[in-house]
């Protein structure tokens, strides 16, 4: 693998990332500013109220002094562009600052802490669903390709199209209504029961809470994977080397899983990674419906409360993850396809 290529790719990722963080900083700046100004006013006002016996001109001085102090602290009197650049720089160095309104589970104010505790929850939910989707999707896709045009193929293709425009959060709503409230066999949301369990039971409890959301995601998710797998595998099956392998007496199983699937692996892998990345991004609302305290839910709460630092942190993390995933994908693709790996002609 060409080291030059890897470095170039990563460098490109970093540049794009910087530009995006800059754009975010621009967007958020005005909102954050407004919020902080208001907060400063309130804080100073509270301070003044606490000092009951101060003559009015002293009050004025005090207020001016304090405002200047606070403005300095938040750099509010510096020109706009500089503030934006500073924020960009800080975000890039992972200095996310403190949330304006929100607090973490342990009551901390640090934006990164708040975000950090939600990351594993989101990851576990969507990874589980994606892995199940991939397994089912690839298996079904291969079966479809083997008997292309057959009953399974046609039926599943129609199925793919039927769920194509179905919002995951809506299906989630239906499942919650039915299984969560009408026949109460699954919890209608949240990540743990109250009162929470300990140890291994907590682990099982979380799994219990994951059932409905994961089922929702799987019901909608595997069709696309199977459709794509079917097309890629079918295309590969029509290649000459497949016929040649069969002619050599190689058993069908080895032809299918070895020769065909290995060759088809790059595009399928791309699709797998893309679907994981997309599922995390596109499902902000999904978490909300299930009251699943992950990144998506956090993002939404932050938007509602206009807590900009948390929003920027989340955006920075999510965007970073997406860009990194894409870059890694590109590089791994190279490893998977020996035609690129050894630098040969494609």
């Amino acid at each position, binding site marked *: 693998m060409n080291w030059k290529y890897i470095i170039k790719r990563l460098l490109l990722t970093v540049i794009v990332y910087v530009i995006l963080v800059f754009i975010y900083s621009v967007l958020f700046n005005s909102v954050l500013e407004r919020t902080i100004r208001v907060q400063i006013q309130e804080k100073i006002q509270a301070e003044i109220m606490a000092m009951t016996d101060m003559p009015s001109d002293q009050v004025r001085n005090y207020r001016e002094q304090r405002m200047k102090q606070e403005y300095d602290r938040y750099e509010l009197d510096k020109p706009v562009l500089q503030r934006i650049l500073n924020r960009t720089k800080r975000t890039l160095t992972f200095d996310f600052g403190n949330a304006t309104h929100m607090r973490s589970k342990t009551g901390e104010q640090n934006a990164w802490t708040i975000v950090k505790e939600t990351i594993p929850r989101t990851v576990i939910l969507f990874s589980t669903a994606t892995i199940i989707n991939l397994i089912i999707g690839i298996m079904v896709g291969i079966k479809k390709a083997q008997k292309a*045009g057959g009953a399974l193929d046609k039926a599943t293709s129609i199925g793919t*199209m039927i769920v194509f425009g*179905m919002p995951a959060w809506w299906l989630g*709503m239906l499942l919650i209504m039915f299984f969560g409230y009408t026949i109460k066999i699954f919890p209608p949301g949240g990540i743990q029961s109250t009162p929470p369990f300990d140890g291994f039971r907590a682990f099982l409890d979380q799994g219990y809470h994951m059932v409905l959301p994961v089922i929702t995601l799987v019901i909608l998710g595997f069709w696309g994977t199977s459709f794509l797998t079917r097309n890629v595998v*079918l295309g590969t099956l029509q290649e000459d080397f497949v016929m040649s392998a069969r002619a050599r007496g190689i058993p069908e199983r080895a032809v299918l899983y070895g020769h065909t699937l290995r060759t088809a692996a790059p595009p399928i892998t791309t699709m797998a990674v893309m679907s994981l990345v997309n599922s995390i991004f596109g499902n902000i609302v999904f978490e909300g419906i299930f009251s699943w305290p992950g990144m998506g839910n956090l993002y939404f709460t932050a938007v509602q409360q206009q807590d900009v630092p948390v929003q920027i942190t989340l955006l920075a993390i999510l965007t970073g993850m997406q860009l990194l995933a894409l870059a890694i994908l590109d590089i791994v693709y190279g490893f998977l396809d020996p035609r690129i790996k050894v630098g040969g002609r494609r």
Partner: protein
Amino acid sequence: MTLKDRKDKFMEFWNEYKKVKFGLVGLAFLIILLLLIIFEPLIVPFEGATEAWSDIAYWQDYPQNSRPVWTNFFSKDKRTPSVILEDFKETELPQRGQVRFFEYEFEYDYNYDIAPKDMILRFKGDGKPFVTISIIRPDGKTIDLIRNREMIISSIDGARVSIQNNSGANAYNFASNYESAENLSGVARDRIDVMPVIMSKADVGITKGAEALKGTYTIKISAILREPQENIEKPIITMSGAVSGLMGTDNQKRDLFTGIILGIKWALLIGLLTSFVSITIGVIYGVICAYFGGIVDVIMQRIFEIFYGIPMLPLLIVVSAIFSPSIWLLIAIMGLLYWVGPVKTVRSIGLQIREETFIEASQALGAGHFRLIFKHMVPLLLPYTFASMALLVPGAIVAEATISLLGLGDTTIVSWGQILNSAFRGGAIINGYWWWVVPPGLMIAITGMTFAFIGFAMDKILHPKLKSR
């Protein structure tokens, strides 16, 4: 290409398309949706509903959170559907001096088990008449619901009185004649459920509506007009049913069937406009990259990568939160982010086309850039373009619905996403109001399915070798 060439190509395409069964199904659905939009004013049972969607007063007389009418088919106890009584017998009694006496008689056939939620009298006119409302039950008993109430007729809305809200005491008194002491003690005089009392058998359990009294009820309204210029016009009685409408009502008493029908045009508008704009931009962008190559390609690719890295939903959320956008701004932003979709594929196809000898030939003949791009390259991409457009529509519709669900959408329009937003916030899920949640989402899914059918059918024609072995 001449007109005939175009027509031939189109017929060729159409012949291929006809062969794909699900493509035709999709097309049929699309036509149905379009017809529903065109005939919307005729289908929607409520006039002026579009503007009145947020107007609480408009929907006042309807029940809250009521099931669709057809659920009666499946339940043992039939619920009363909403109905408007407009026929009445008007009698004028002999005048006494200036004072005039009018009587209006309405007949109502009641054949259900569960009483309506309310009975509301409305009328227009002028003045401040004194109104008495009494109801004669099929068992011969009469209840005076409202006695000599002065009702002020406003010039804008007329006059309105709700039995449920105003006849509590009278209903309680009536009930106390027949009800057991035990049951009565559990009922508060001012919070009694009036309608079941009026319409149940005069027996123990009347306060709970234990057994419905079926038959014909006569509602008598007497009005006393004291001044000569006073008059009463168009009295109407609305039975606010326990079931209402084809798809029930929401917590603002709005008829959901109306909402669903009104939402169709927005869904199609959002989907088609967004996909048209973004795919067009994307395809042209990709072709230009492929055509010019070199430094142009490199720069454009970098710009592309920046846009590609922007996560659409989070950005949409942020912008909506900051700016509270109209639907047009939302469409614009979506268009600005979705264009990245087709670019990679279009560029690689474009690169292949560029290597074709006919391009070289055209260049040798002196064709300019514009001509080459738009007359030679783009037409070859048209099938892919249309397939992409069709396949993008569902995504755009869901994106808008998602934003609306978060409460960040354009609240002035009636979109399915807005309806779902009200549902979620109105506790529809917890309370199991399935008629509020299922139809809007189902419509989103069906519309998505329609365009998926169409788009995949086009895609299938594009890649015939993947049909079967």
